[in-house]
């Protein structure tokens, strides 16, 4: 009798074990990615999570207390590339001030995604998004925008710690000119990413 119970038990549980770890991130688990980092000598955890199509970043201290929650960054998970690797979330000191920056991307539609870089404001004791500035167009945004979503994350890419590149359409108002894909480069200078140049992407015919 005992053996029968054990056999039934094993038969019920074993098939389920095959599916362990195969769930789609974000479907059952709202946490898409986590990273640990140190801030003022304290161990912190940053969490990228999605609740009800609202993607946010949260920072928790060592006791699990939430010390920062971002605004909604988007509605879907998005990868970006740093060190030639597609990642969901990264913590790194980009500007050399010994305080790490938090980097994450999100898709917010209809075709656009943003790469956000949060830096710690020591006076306000909170994280703030670094600005992406296009002086000639008098345009400042809280993220690097790409309107050409690439599943491999290459539309939002760190070329080095202080240079980022977005992939996006270059539009023309001329009826005879088709929109073309372009690279947009920004460089980290004086606490903000500033537009450097844009150029069309080479096309394979």
């Amino acid at each position: 009798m005992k053996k029968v119970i054990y056999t039934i038990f094993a038969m019920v549980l074993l098939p389920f074990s095959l599916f362990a770890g195969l769930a789609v991130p974000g479907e059952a688990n709202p946490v898409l990615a986590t990273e640990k980092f140190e801030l003022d000598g304290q161990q912190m955890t940053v969490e990228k999570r999605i609740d009800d199509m609202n993607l946010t970043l949260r920072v928790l201290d060592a006791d699990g207390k939430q010390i920062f929650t971002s605004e909604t960054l988007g509605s879907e998970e998005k990868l970006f590339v740093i060190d030639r690797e597609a990642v969901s979330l990264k913590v790194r000191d980009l500007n050399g001030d010994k305080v790490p920056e938090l980097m994450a991307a999100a898709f917010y539609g209809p075709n656009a995604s943003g790469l956000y870089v949060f830096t710690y404001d020591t006076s306000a004791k909170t994280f703030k998004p670094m600005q992406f500035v296009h002086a000639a167009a008098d345009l400042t945004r809280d993220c690097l925008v790409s309107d050409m979503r690439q599943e491999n994350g290459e539309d939002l890419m760190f070329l080095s710690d202080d240079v980022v590149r977005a992939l996006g359409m270059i539009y023309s108002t001329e009826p005879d000119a088709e929109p073309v894909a372009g690279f947009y480069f920004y460089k980290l200078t004086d606490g903000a990413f500033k537009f450097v140049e844009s150029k069309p992407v080479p096309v394979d015919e």
Partner: protein
Amino acid sequence: MKKCKMLSLVLMMCASFFMTGCDAQQILNVIQNVANGVQQAMPAIRDAVGAFQNAFNNNNTAANNNQNAANNNAAETNAANQANVNVTNPNQEDIAGQNTANTNTANNNNTQTNNTTNTTNTNASQTEAALANYKGGKLAPSEFAKLFGPVAREASKKSGVPASIIMAQAALETGWGGSAIGDAKNLFGIKGTGPAGSITMPTKEFINGRMVTVQGKFRKYNSWQESIEDHSKLLTGASRYAKCMAVRNDPDQFARELQKAGYATDPQYANKLISIMKSNNFYQYNN
């Protein structure tokens, strides 16, 4: 010893059961938490084991358990990052320049009738018919306006997005219909699955530093109007574009807010929209 093995097996199976539906990151987090807990509890465990040894002079075997599962493959998360594109045939752009004849037929031969109401109705129904027959392809700005103006106006009544903005966006983003996905009635090139399913079409993707033609999945709609309504819904539903809706009575400002919110990468996007609206007098279609 046998019981201990059995217990371990049962525990592992229970753990597997509870991990069903978890993703790899979640499992790694649980394992990490367990490992941290075990690490913190180690002194107490050692004390307990020592006491147990002293009392029974036995070998303990239970302290070093449960670490086999810790080496889960983090590569699993990377697997999803790989581009699932197949570099395929470059024969594409088969939609440009077609079917414009249909739009012309809509505007024919109405000059003889004296009944203006009938003429208006006939024109409206002909425009609808022309729109239904339109399969994508570049249009002259005047044809584009005739075809999409009434539809954009109707969609605008529901969503609040100015009709002139809808038309300028469609014109700018598709090159006046040139890259609209006709078979799917997808005016804005939105990827994914739409109300009528999806369609696989050649599209340009960025691979190894170049734009390469690949097969992409695009939203399919039952009508062009549905495509416009879906696009408007995406705009009005996203918190990021909330400021645009606050200035919906001012199309030029709406365009600037779209740009600030990050609708497009192009820093001149708003100016280009405004230029199209002005030069083609798309404002006339606003409610």
